[in-house]
């Protein structure tokens, strides 16, 4: 066993924010009973939406795949309890584009009858490649909020030279505490998952990285690690600074290596997995339970009893909040995710999905003063973890100057929101960068489309030209033939006619 260490890399900027985590960590995780109805979006991960493999009226069991991945990037979706499929229809969800997405709606029968999944085998005897396929079948994605399919992430990592597995227990965004309570209550699953992942990756070093404001979680992890006696796993403490839990930031903090712009942690020999993901991997590979539930923090001054809940995926936010004791009369905005990077939704009919780490009900926004022009104070540049100059980016975003936006690193912005928090002019910087990024993408698409159209047009012109040339050449050849062959042919015809004439005469 190794004691927690503090040897850290350098991270620029960031903010020490009030955590607001005490309220939700006072009580143990609350298990939310299976609701009457489950709503399972077919798109709960990065990549192509899964395709439903059940129809309306089918009976499904807990853990039974109801949608299969379509294409290279994707994972299956499992029924999270037993019941009958009553609809496959658009339903309100929390996502960045559009309000509704296709969902499989299951009416639960309350029996919670389990599906007989594949036979559990000792993962240590599995080839890493087979273990990856198994992880894929569990529907497991990154549970830190990014929901990148875990199997694909590991497969990509297997193609690179990787040294370190980083288990991300740095839950740096205020209010969110689901990883903290998970580490407190299920440290064995977290570390067990780390061992599975290390086998899958054939990596010999794993850092479990936890923020210094989670002493209880660290103590529990240490106890379990001492029992495990696995000296490949090291617990590392990092200071409580937002956004040190961002994937690239975590790599930089722990290894002092910068993930290259547009690259992945694997480019610098690291693979990052959320602690919740590790526990989910353990539950599936060792216990045979696919990803059908998760821990979600339900908190904010709009929630009567802030707490962490474990609920089946597909349970609506309304059901969950009802189980915790309901809203207070201050609930005005409902945020899915953290206060800084989350997204507000207009209704609590949205279901908990694999990405839902936090549900935040808050009072009306306290911004009363309007936005002022940027005074170039540079506070935003001081806190930017990527060392951008948000004040300059904002200027160029307003001018829609694509080249300058690229020069000043717009695409490197991680949208952590630190700049918004310190801006004395209250400019919504992150939102404007989100829009500018979208526009750059559009512009690139448009360019690509125009380029394709141009290529098609040129190809057509070339073809027409070639055909014309060929026709001309053919014509010329015929003419030429006619020129040389002509007199002889005429002579022959005349001769033939003459002969015929003579024959007739005789």
């Amino acid at each position: 066993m190794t004691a927690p260490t503090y040897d850290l890399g350098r991270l620029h900027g960031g903010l020490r924010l009030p955590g607001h985590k005490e309220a939700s960590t006072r009580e143990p995780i609350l298990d939310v009973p299976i609701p009457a109805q489950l709503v399972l979006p077919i798109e709960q991960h990065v990549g192509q939406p899964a395709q439903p493999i059940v129809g309306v009226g089918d009976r499904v069991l807990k853990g039974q795949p109801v949608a299969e991945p379509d294409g290279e990037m994707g994972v299956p979706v499992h029924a999270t309890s037993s019941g009958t499929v009553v609809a496959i229809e658009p339903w309100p969800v929390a996502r960045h584009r559009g309000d509704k997405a296709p969902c499989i709606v299951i009416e639960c029968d309350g029996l919670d009858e389990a599906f007989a999944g594949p036979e559990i085998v000792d993962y240590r005897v599995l080839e890493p490649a087979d273990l990856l396929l198994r992880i894929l079948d569990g529907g497991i994605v990154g549970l830190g909020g990014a929901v990148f399919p875990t199997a694909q992430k590991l497969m990509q990592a297997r193609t690179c030279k990787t040294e370190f597995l980083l288990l991300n227990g740095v839950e740096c965004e205020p209010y969110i505490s689901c990883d903290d309570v998970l580490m407190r209550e299920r440290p064995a699953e977290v570390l067990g998952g780390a061992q599975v992942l290390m086998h899958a990756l054939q990596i010999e070093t794993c850092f479990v990285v936890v923020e210094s404001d989670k002493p209880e979680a660290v103590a529990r992890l240490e106890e379990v690690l001492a029992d495990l006696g696995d000296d490949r796993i090291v617990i590392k403490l990092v200071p409580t600074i937002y956004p040190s839990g961002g994937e690239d930031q975590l790599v930089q903090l722990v290894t002092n290596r910068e993930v290259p712009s547009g690259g992945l942690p694997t480019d610098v020999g690291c693979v990052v997995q959320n602690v919740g993901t590790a526990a989910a991997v353990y539950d599936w590979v060792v216990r045979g339970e696919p990803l059908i539930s998760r821990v979600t923090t339900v908190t904010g001054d709009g929630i009567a009893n802030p707490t962490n809940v474990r609920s089946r995926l597909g349970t609506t936010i309304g059901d969950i909040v009802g189980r915790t004791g309901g809203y207070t009369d201050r609930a005005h905005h409902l945020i899915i995710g953290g206060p800084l990077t989350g997204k507000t939704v207009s209704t609590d009919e949205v279901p908990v999905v694999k990405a839902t780490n936090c549900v935040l009900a808050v009072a009306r926004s306290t911004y009363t003063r309007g936005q002022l022009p940027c005074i170039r104070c540079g506070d935003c540049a001081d806190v930017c973890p990527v060392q951008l100059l948000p004040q300059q980016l904002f200027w160029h975003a307003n001018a829609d100057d694509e080249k300058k936006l690229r020069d000043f690193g717009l695409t490197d912005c991680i949208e952590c929101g630190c700049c918004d928090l310190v801006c004395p002019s209250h400019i919504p910087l992150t939102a404007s960068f989100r829009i500018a990024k979208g526009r750059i993408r559009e512009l690139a698409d448009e360019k690509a489309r125009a380029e394709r159209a141009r290529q098609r047009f040129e190809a057509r012109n070339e073809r027409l030209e070639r055909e014309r040339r060929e026709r001309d050449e053919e014509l010329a050849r015929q003419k030429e033939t006619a020129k040389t062959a002509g007199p002889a042919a005429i002579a022959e015809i005349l001769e033939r006619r003459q002969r015929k004439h003579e024959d007739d005469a005789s």
Partner: protein
Amino acid sequence: MKFELRETPYWSARTNVASTMLQVLAALVPAALAHVWYFGPGLIFNLLVAAIFAVAGEAMMLRLRGRPVGAALGDYSALVAAVLLAFALPSLTPWWVTATGALFAVVVAKHLYGGLGFNIFNPAMAGYVVILVAFPMHLNLWVAPRMGDIDYQHLTFLQTLWFTLTGGLPDSATFDAISRATPLDVMKTGLNNMATVSEIRANPLMGDFGGRGWEWIGNFLAMGGFWLMIRGIIRWQIPAGVGLGLLVPAGIMWLVDPGNNPSPGFHLFAGASILCAFFIATDPVSAATSPRGRLVYGIGIGFLIFSIRTWGSYADGVAFAVLLMNMAVPAIDYVTRPHIVGHGRGSASDE
């Protein structure tokens, strides 16, 4: 249940422009009191005149431009420009001189360029330069500092007010009797007249480093400046840059030829060096905005101040130095972009 949508981040900002500006004003209070102590109540009237005209000009321009007047006045930025201008003027300045500078600062330098956040030039310094061009004689009317052993005539509160309103002195006083050249003027004139630095410094107006009275105001300005730095309102780069740009060449020249070059201490504590380093050059809108850029910007200003004082025809060069470097800001900001994380370690860290 239904909820209202909004953009994230959901968080209340901890600062606002108004509080930033108010802290700048607060940091000037000790220096203002010292100023009044040494040079009489003139500063108070200058402050009032500059503030009234700057704020009125701001309100007028906002109205003409169809912008909400109340919110923009509430950011106190016009007030800060007015106060800095007033600090740069002699304590005896007729109201129309101050008003011209204040109006030019706000109307032309600020609002014709787009208002708060868009002005290329430091408004206070633009206003000062207009006064320098239009009313050069009024910038020479510095009264002698009130020191026990310097026996000059001082104007009373009412006499100062009278001068501010009418530009006239009471019958009992003449300009010769009340006004004195600034230490920088004394130095420049002396050096032009082939006097050595030590001879010039024998003048009773000269203090330990700069001019008497002046250097104490400088101390209080620096105190306010450091307070702003601790509060995070300004950063170290610009003051340090101005100091480096001014003191390094001054130090070299002084070491080479101390007879004909005043010491770095004199450069620092005479004229508006400290005011410039902490309060004028640090105006964020017209300054460079990247961390390394700020250092470059500060060094440029410091060096220009030194150059103008040493080889120029003006005694002090703060206003010109700031305005010249204002012009260089876009270029500085472009070439001093910090190393973006993930783009290789080619460029050095900027802090």
